C-alpha cells in the first residue's frame, strides 16, 4: 500500500504546487476578461442625442501622471463653473495602459479617460471610447483642432477622441552654460551639426557638466526627441497607414550616428545609456546639461528649478525643424452611462475659455490651431517658438504603436540600443523588419 499512498501523496503535492502556480499565473495574466457580450457603447442613445448636459452628475476621469497637471487644471476650472463635477485620478505612466485594459475587461471604464495620443488609434480600434463623430460635428471645431491628434483618435472614419493636452518635443538649452562655453545664448543651433558642436563646447567645461543628455534606454523618449530630426531632414519613420516601418533610412542612420558619437566622446552624460525615463526630467533641470531635446511641458518645471532655459526647435541634419506633436487625447469611456454629461466636459475643454484661460495661461500649447497666438503666448517669446513649431510637427499613427515602439520589450527599443551602443547598421535593418512585423500583428 505504501507505493500507491506515496504516489497519491506525490500527486496531491504536485497538485498543490500546481494550484499555487496556476493562481499566480492567473493573477498576473489578468484573467478577468469580459463575458463576451458586445460593449454597451451607448451609441444607440447618444448618436442621435448629441446635446451636452450639465445636471450635477459626478463624473469619473482617469489620466496618466505625466500630463495630470494640465488635466487637473481643466477639471478644477470646469468644476468651479459647472454643476457637473469631475473626479480626476492620475496613474503612473507605465501602468496606465494595463489599468485601462483591466477596466475595459471588467466593463468598468471611467466616464472619461485621456491617453497618450500615440496609443489613441489602438484604444479607438478596441472600442474603449464612445463614438464622438456626431457630437464633434455640432461644435464646428473639428477643423480647428490639432490635426495629428484628431487623426490619432479616428478609426475607420469615425472619431473617438479629441485633443486634450499637447506636448511637443523641443530643444532646451542652458543659457548660462552657453555663455560660459563662449556660445551666444540668443542663437540656438539651427542644424543637428550645430547642436553637436554646441554640446561639445559645453561638455568641455567639465566639473560634472555634460554637453547633452538623452533617454537611451527608453523607446518613447528616443522617438519623441530623435524623430523630429529625421522628419526635418526629409525622412519618415512609418508608412502613412501605420502598418510598415521606414526606420532603415539614411536620415535615421545619420541622426543615430550623431548621437552615438556624442555618447562615445563623453559629451552626452554617461547616464544617457540607461535613462529609461524616470530620471530624465531630473537630469534636465539639474543645471548640468548644456543642450538636450525634451518635452515642452517641462519648460515651467525646468525654469522653476532655477535653470535659465532657452527653447529652440529640434533641427534636421542640415537645417529645417520639426517636432513630435505628442500629448494626450480624451474621450468618453465605452461603458459610461453619463455620455451626455461627459461630453459637456469634453466640449468645454475645447472652448476658447478653457484653451486660453486654462491652457495658454498655464504656459501650455492650445489644442486649437486658431488660438496658437493668444494674449498669454505673446508675452513670452519662448511660447511663441513652441506654438509656431507645433504647426511643423507630426503625430505618428499606428494601431500597434505601444507594442512596436514604446513598450520596454518593443522591437524599436532593441533597434535603438543597437543603433546607439551596438552594431548600428544591422540594428536598424533588423529593427525595420521586426517593427513592421509588430505593426501588422493582429
Amino acid at each position, binding site marked *: 500500500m505504501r507505493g500507491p499512498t506515496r504516489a497519491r501523496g506525490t500527486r496531491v503535492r504536485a497538485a498543490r504546487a*500546481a494550484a499555487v*502556480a496556476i493562481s499566480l499565473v492567473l493573477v*498576473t495574466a489578468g484573467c478577468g476578461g469580459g463575458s463576451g*457580450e*458586445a460593449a454597451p457603447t451607448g451609441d444607440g442613445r447618444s448618436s442621435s442625442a448629441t446635446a451636452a448636459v450639465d445636471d450635477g452628475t459626478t463624473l469619473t476621469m482617469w489620466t496618466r501622471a505625466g500630463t495630470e497637471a494640465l488635466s487637473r487644471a481643466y477639471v478644477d476650472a470646469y468644476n468651479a463653473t459647472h454643476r457637473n463635477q469631475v473626479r480626476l485620478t492620475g496613474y503612473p505612466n507605465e501602468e496606465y495602459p494595463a489599468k485601462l*485594459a483591466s477596466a475595459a475587461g471588467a466593463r468598468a471604464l471611467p466616464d472619461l479617460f485621456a491617453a497618450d495620443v500615440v496609443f489613441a488609434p489602438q484604444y479607438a480600434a478596441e472600442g474603449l471610447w464612445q463614438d464622438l463623430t456626431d457630437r464633434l460635428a455640432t461644435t464646428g471645431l473639428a477643423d480647428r483642432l490639432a490635426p495629428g491628434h484628431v487623426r490619432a483618435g479616428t478609426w475607420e472614419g469615425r472619431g473617438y477622441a479629441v485633443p486634450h493636452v499637447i506636448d511637443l518635443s523641443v530643444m532646451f538649452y542652458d543659457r548660462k552654460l552657453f555663455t560660459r562655453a563662449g556660445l551666444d545664448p540668443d542663437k540656438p543651433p539651427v542644424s543637428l551639426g550645430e547642436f553637436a558642436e554646441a554640446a561639445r563646447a559645453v561638455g568641455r567645461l567639465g566639473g560634472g557638466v555634460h554637453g547633452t543628455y538623452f533617454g537611451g534606454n527608453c523607446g518613447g523618449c528616443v522617438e519623441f526627441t530623435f524623430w523630429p530630426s529625421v522628419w526635418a531632414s526629409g525622412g519618415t519613420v512609418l508608412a502613412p497607414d501605420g502598418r510598415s516601418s521606414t526606420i532603415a533610412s539614411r536620415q535615421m542612420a545619420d541622426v543615430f550616428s550623431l548621437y552615438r558619437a556624442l555618447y562615445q566622446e563623453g559629451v552626452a552624460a554617461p547616464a544617457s545609456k*540607461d535613462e*529609461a525615463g524616470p530620471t530624465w526630467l531630473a537630469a534636465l533641470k539639474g543645471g548640468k546639461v548644456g543642450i538636450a531635446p525634451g518635452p515642452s511641458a517641462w519648460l515651467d518645471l525646468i525654469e522653476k528649478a532655477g535653470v535659465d532655459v532657452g527653447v529652440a526647435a529640434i533641427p534636421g541634419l542640415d537645417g529645417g525643424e520639426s517636432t513630435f506633436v505628442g500629448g494626450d487625447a480624451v474621450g468618453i469611456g465605452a461603458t459610461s452611462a453619463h455620455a451626455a454629461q461627459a461630453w459637456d466636459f469634453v466640449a468645454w475643454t475645447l472652448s476658447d475659455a478653457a484653451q486660453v484661460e486654462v491652457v495658454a495661461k498655464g504656459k501650455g500649447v492650445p489644442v486649437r490651431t486658431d488660438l496658437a497666438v493668444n494674449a498669454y503666448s505673446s508675452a513670452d517669446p519662448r511660447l511663441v517658438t513652441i506654438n509656431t513649431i507645433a504647426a511643423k510637427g507630426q503625430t505618428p499613427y499606428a494601431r500597434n504603436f505601444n507594442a512596436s515602439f514604446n513598450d520596454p*520589450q518593443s522591437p524599436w527599443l532593441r533597434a535603438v540600443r543597437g543603433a546607439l551602443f551596438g552594431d548600428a547598421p544591422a540594428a536598424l535593418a533588423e529593427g525595420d523588419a521586426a517593427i513592421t512585423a509588430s505593426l501588422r500583428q493582429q
Partner: protein
Amino acid sequence: MRAVTGSGPRGRRRAAAGLLYASPTLVMVVTFFVVPLGLVGWMSLHRWPLLGTPTINAPDNYTAATGDSLLRSATWFTVKYTLVVTPLLFCLALAMALLVQHRRRGTGVVRTAFLLPMAVGFASASVLFLGLLSDEIGPVTGALTRLGLVDGYVSWVSGSPGSALGASVVLVLWRFGGFMMLLFLVGLQAIPTEVYEAARLDGASRRQILFRITLPLLRPTLALVLTLIVTGSLLAFDQFWILTRGGPDNSTTSLVMVVYRNAFVRFDLGSAAAVSILLLAGLLAINVVQLGVLRRRSR
C-alpha cells in the same frame, strides 16, 4: 474508513456532514481556482478582445506562441534565472537556519534580522533596490567607489545582462532568504533531539550528523522549499518589471512579462491565456518530476 464511506443512514449522514465541513473550501477553490482556470483555457482558444464578442481561432494562439522569438528568449532566461536562484536561495536559507537553529545568546536578534526583509512587500523591496543601486540617488555606487571597487559611472540594473540579473538575484536572496529559513527552521525543530543525542553518543561527527540525520529527516521540508523556489522563480515578475524592466535588450524578460505584454500592451488576451496555459503545463511537469524524485529518495 468504513464509517465515513459506508452505506446506511449513519454513513450517509457522516458523509453529508463531511461535505458540509468541506464546502466553504470547495466553494473558494471552485470560484477562485477551477472557474478562472477554465476561463483561461477557454480564452486561449479564442481571439478575445477587451470589449466585444470573442471568436474561436484555435489553435492560432498556440501556434503563434511557438514562433514568438520574445517568448523563446524569455523561456530561456526564465529557466536560466531559476537555475541560478534555486541553489543560491536554497543553500543560503539552509545555512541561515542551521546558524540560528539552537537557542543561544543573541539568536533571537539574528533570527529577527534574517526575517525582517519579509516585512517589506516584494514590489516595495524592488523599488528600494532600484533606489539603492541608482547612480543618481543611491549610496551603493558611491560606497563601492570610496572602497576602490568600482570606478566612475556604474549602471547595476541596466548596464549589462549580467549585472541586471545579478542585481535581481541579490534582491530575491535578501527578500526571500528569511522566509525560506523560517520553513527550514520549522523542519529542523521537528527533528527529535533524542536522535541527535543518540548520534553523538555513537560518536558521529558534525558532518555525519548533517548528512546522515538532519538532511534525511528534513526531506519533506526540502521538497516544500524547493517547490516554492522553483515555482516562484518560473513565475518571476515583480523584480524584473520594476528593477530592470526586462532589459537591457530584453535580456531579463521573464515568461510572465510576456504574458503581461500580450494581455496589457497588445491587448491580445487569447494569446496571453495560451502562454499562461503553456507555462502552467511546464510548471506542472516540473513539479511532478521534482516531487517524484524527492519522494523516491525519501523511501
